[in-house]
């Protein structure tokens, strides 16, 4: 197991090789690895700013190619530093290109229970995994434009429905201020930080403990939940459906229905 990080974390003890890189140099390291794997010449001088040596990266490149089945796990440190989504794209490209030599996959490390499910559901309904705008009636995908932090910091949105998250506790201050400034609706089993700055809070049953359904494990295996308690609160599924039905029953909604379309 090779661990790459900007500081020696407790995981370093479990690693066979620990490579400490300089902060913000993820993209450079990944790009140099891609060059080395293809046998392209890399100057030692180009490697120096990353905090590693050319020999260390050459060794890593050989190990990656020699693996029979390799997995590249990546965390949020990659997308939260300079380069953001481009860093994730470089990691995914590296894993894809390694398949010219061996079997290799990339897998994001997940903090929350069913983020993977969100990726899967958004993919099979809209073709994109996250940050999908349906504002024109068809799906558009553009991280940086339609990703939540960017939308909120720029103040693009004028209402937010928060389900199964607490951005009021974790997001940058300008994003939180925008949630406070515009009407926010929160669905959560508890009254959260976000609930306190929201216009509407609805208490829902806790997923997996009192709400049944399906969740995806990090490696995209779907698992059925086995709830043990009966909650006095409705499920998120029920509340979200009720909101949509309320809008549709009023004849509201964004998309034109066949009744509204007139063909001359």
């Amino acid at each position: 197991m090779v661990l790459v990080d900007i500081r020696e974390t407790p995981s370093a003890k479990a690693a066979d090789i620990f490579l400490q890189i300089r902060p913000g140099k993820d993209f450079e390291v990944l790009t140099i690895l891609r060059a080395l794997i293809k046998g392209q010449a890399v100057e030692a001088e180009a490697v120096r700013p990353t905090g590693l040596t050319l020999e260390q990266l050459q060794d890593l490149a050989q190990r990656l190619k020699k693996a029979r089945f390799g997995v590249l796990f990546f965390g949020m440190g990659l997308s939260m530093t300079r380069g953001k989504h481009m860093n994730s794209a470089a990691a995914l490209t590296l894993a894809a290109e390694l398949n010219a030599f061996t079997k290799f996959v990339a897998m994001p490390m997940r903090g929350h229970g069913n983020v993977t499910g969100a990726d899967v559901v958004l993919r099979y309904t809209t073709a994109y995994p996250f940050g999908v705008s349906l504002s024109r009636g068809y799906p558009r995908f553009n991280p940086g434009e339609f990703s939540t932090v960017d939308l909120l910091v720029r103040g693009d949105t004028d209402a937010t429905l928060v389900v199964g998250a607490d951005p009021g506790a974790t997001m940058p201050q300008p994003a939180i201020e925008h949630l406070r400034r515009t009407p926010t609706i929160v669905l959560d089993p508890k009254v959260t930080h976000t609930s306190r700055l929201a216009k509407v809070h609805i208490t829902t049953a806790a997923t997996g403990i009192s709400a049944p359904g399906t969740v995806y494990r990090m490696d995209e295996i779907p698992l059925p939940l086995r709830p043990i308690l009966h909650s006095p609160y409705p499920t998120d599924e029920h509340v979200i459906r009720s909101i949509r039905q309320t809008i549709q029953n009023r004849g509201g909604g964004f998309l034109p229905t066949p009744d509204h379309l007139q063909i001359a």
Partner: protein
Amino acid sequence: MELSVVQNAVCTFCGCVCDDIELHADGQRIVETKRACILGEAWFKHHTAERLYPAALIDGREASLEEAIACAAEILERADLPLIYGLSNITCEAQREAVWLAETVGAVIDSHTSL
């Protein structure tokens, strides 16, 4: 008190989604977890079947579920660019409903993946 045991319960605290947990509950709360890690045990014991919070809040004041749903529907319908965010601690069935709602109101839909 009605005692119940669930075998092979699924823990949704983190992305590992362990599916071999044994849970014991007394109808109100989970009293024992087997094979759960520290984080999983805390997650299971933290959520109870008690009514600890109001059904809904509007502007910080207690409201009924129906009022809150009507208010939420009006906010989302009126908005020019609503955002649906999170989706990480809910079921896939609820996520599908969220996509349908996003399509109905012309929203941006996004999860923790974008962070």
